[in-house]
């Protein structure tokens, strides 16, 4: 693998990991929001 290809691959992996992390964080926020709704009896 050439040096440029390695850098490109590295950038691609960092981008995909950041996207996954963002989705995970949004999922956790949404999960806590939904849990709060259920526990408060708003959504039963």
């Amino acid at each position: 693998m050439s040096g440029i290809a390695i850098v490109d691959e590295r950038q691609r992996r960092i981008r995909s990991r950041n996207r996954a992390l963002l989705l995970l964080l949004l999922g956790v926020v949404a999960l806590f929001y939904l849990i709060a709704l259920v526990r408060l009896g708003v959504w039963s």
Partner: protein
Amino acid sequence: MSLSAFETSTVALPQGLVPTVGDYFALLKPRVMSLVVFTGFVGLYLAPGHLHPLLAAVAVLCIAIGAGAAGAINMWYERDIDALMERTRRRPLPAGRMTPGDALGFGAVLAVGSVIVMGLALNAAAAALLALAIGFYVFVYTVGLKRRTPQNIVIGGAAGAFPPMIGWAAVTGDVSVTALALFALIFFWTPPHFWALALYRAGDYAKAGVPMLPVVAGKAETKKQMLLYTLVLWPVAVAPALLHATGWLYGAAALALSVLFTLCAVAVRRDSGERAARRMFGFSILYLFLLFALMAIDRAPGLFAVPGFTR
């Protein structure tokens, strides 16, 4: 970040690559997780009481994440022996696709997170049991037993037996005799399941210095022990029906499947090669899956009446 930490990561990842999302997912041992999730769900489903579907999903998710976290920490601790075994040498850590710190951090965050969410969304009993299961797998099995005794998977099997009990506790807030019966089922199933694998991977385990029973006591003794455990499973597998947690459809099927499992162990004793052991390992997974699936089917509303049991 210190210079030494940077150098460590550069050395571990020679091509300057960062781990992929798939590498992180592989740390969670997804194949093991699927059976854990399923047994946890059935424990939750069988428990008397009502749970909001979202909270039920959260409970199953926490069990899955907790089990995955324990798997990630296990891979961090066992990276040296994983590199020596054919079955495990392509995992992210021994293959050099991830630094040990990444794996440990990932596992620890998920372990703590899953217990906290379980405690906040469900109840303290379920959270405590989840923490106990993770702690048991990491400290008792991985650190304490695996490299020291051939009874490693007998005692360590308790860690994998927790999920249905956690699912049950998520609904009821406590642990009943039926939940303990589900625990016992997986506990006594684990030794013949693992030893079937160890029989045809004995060379791998010997190379890595892991004292699995076939390595320490020999194949003949292992096969005898496997047969004994399958016999113990007969009453244990039928116990949920005896406790009226399921109907007799399950009871009869559990007995028939247990007889088949014992026949597999008999075939392993007679076979001097690997074929019967490989077949028994495959059947052991199907056996546990079918038992828990039948419990759920037997308890499905309107399908079969369960005498003397009210939800």
